[in-house]
């Protein structure tokens, strides 16, 4: 079993952390977590919205971070230091197209126990905090990682955080005709039927319509 060694991963993570810390508006730290029998070093970084685009380009070009796993938008209406937060999860996978020899593909089998430098797989978690605003927005990374395209669409659709420079923003999970400004994962929207007991509260079904039915399509 050739798994990636914790030491190499930690070293690579530290290197990335120090490199990120040198940039403006970036606070980065190494976070080691456990999972099963393994330790899991994660590069944590907090980036200011202004410097995000630059950091993203750096990550992609200099640190060969090639996989954008997930983009999470969070609405923190009652938090002291932020109202909105965007959390990016990246992976560095080191995937290269396999070589072709004699018209035959030679599969790219990486021995993870021996990888070094920029090929070491890494988890990167970047959070961007946005202050109180009604139109939260961060720079889009759709052109750097195409995988971020639909993630950004989803984040806008559900949380309402817009991405500047995103091409073709549209609803993906909500109906296309949802009202403008309706983003269900914002905290002012409550679960409609939560705590509603048909058996007791409304045996006849008079109240089948939720309270906010007129406001939300």
């Amino acid at each position, binding site marked *: 079993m050739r798994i990636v060694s914790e030491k190499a991963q930690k070293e690579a993570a530290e290197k990335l952390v120090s490199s990120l810390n040198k940039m403006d508006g970036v606070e980065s730290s190494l976070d080691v977590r456990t999972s099963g029998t393994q330790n899991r070093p994660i590069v944590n970084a907090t980036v200011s919205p202004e410097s995000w685009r630059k950091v993203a380009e750096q990550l992609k070009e200099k640190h060969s971070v090639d996989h954008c796993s997930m983009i999470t938008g969070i609405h923190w209406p009652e938090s002291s230091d932020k109202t909105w937060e965007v959390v990016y999860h990246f992976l560095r996978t080191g995937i290269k197209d396999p070589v072709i020899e004699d*018209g*035959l*593909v030679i599969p790219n089998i990486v021995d993870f126990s021996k990888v070094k430098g920029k090929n070491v797989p890494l988890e990167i978690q970047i959070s961007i905090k946005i202050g109180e605003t009604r139109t939260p927005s961060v720079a889009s990374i759709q052109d750097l990682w195409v995988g971020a395209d639909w993630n950004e669409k989803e984040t806008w659709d559900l949380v309402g955080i817009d991405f500047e420079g995103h091409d073709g923003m549209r609803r993906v999970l909500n109906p296309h005709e949802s009202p403008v400004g309706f983003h269900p994962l914002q905290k002012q929207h409550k679960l409609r039927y939560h*705590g509603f*007991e*048909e*058996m*007791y509260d409304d*045996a006849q079904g008079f109240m089948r319509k939720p309270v906010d039915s007129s406001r939300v399509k």
Partner: protein
Amino acid sequence: MDYNTGHPHATPNFRNLVIKPMWITLKTALRTVPYIGKAKFLKNNYHGQRANLTDEFTLERIGDNHPSSGQIYAADRESSPALPFLERPVTIMYPYERLEDMEPWLFVPGNYNGRIGIVWETCTACKACVKACPNDCLHMTSETRVNVLDTTDEGDEWHGLGSELESGGLAARRKETFDEIEDFDLMHEHTAPPQQYDFAEVIDISGDKATVRWQDGSGIESVEMSSLKPAEVDIVSGRIDIGRCMFCGLCAEACPFESFFMSNEYDGMSGYTREDLWFDADRTRLLPVVHQERVDMELAKRAQKEKAKREKKAAKAAAAAKSEA
């Protein structure tokens, strides 16, 4: 167009145009034919193979009376010596046949997440199950029941720790025969299963005899006190909107007493209206006999506690009497 795409592995060729795929389907068809299916060239490692898949624990559990005891099961369920003519995996034609008869090990009590069942006798209305329910489909309700401490008979280890019969209270008598319960067909009767006890109001107690009015309307009768057990109307869990239940089993895990179970029953949970799926607690009641072992455990636990309490009380009373004296 060249069909040979230079793919490194399997290359399209004339032979495989029909021969190989048709041979493999023919093999499969031949395997389902009696006697021929056992021919060696068919490599029939599937149908009609004998393999012992039942472990000793399961054998012990299902006992000798179970339809599947003494059978050897194959991975495909029915290719067992029980069915010598079948050379194929067979769909279980529920409801005429049931999976638990074919693969009894899948339905070890406590292993299957069937409809919920509550042994009222041991429920203490702690609401742990209601809180655990992710869907808020479970509710408390009040029902006539016998407390677990009162279920004991004369001569049992923990007898005499429950409450006493009182005139004006409720009493219960265990049914003589269980025919009604055994014949009850959960699959087709969409009603509450029969009770294990007959309940009555105690009108008067005189000596060994008690005059009771049976709640089933059979009138007033004078019966032996020893045949009666004290009953009460108590809050128990088990009222459920089964249409909302997703059978996750978290409620059964949350129960700190031996009262809440997921039964092996997956039948009798349908109806024509939404209201049909609102089960009162009597539809989810489990008879203690189903989980007798666990109920006995609970009885012992609680009786010990009760005994200790009474001893303490008695000691206190004795001490008080002593000090008074």
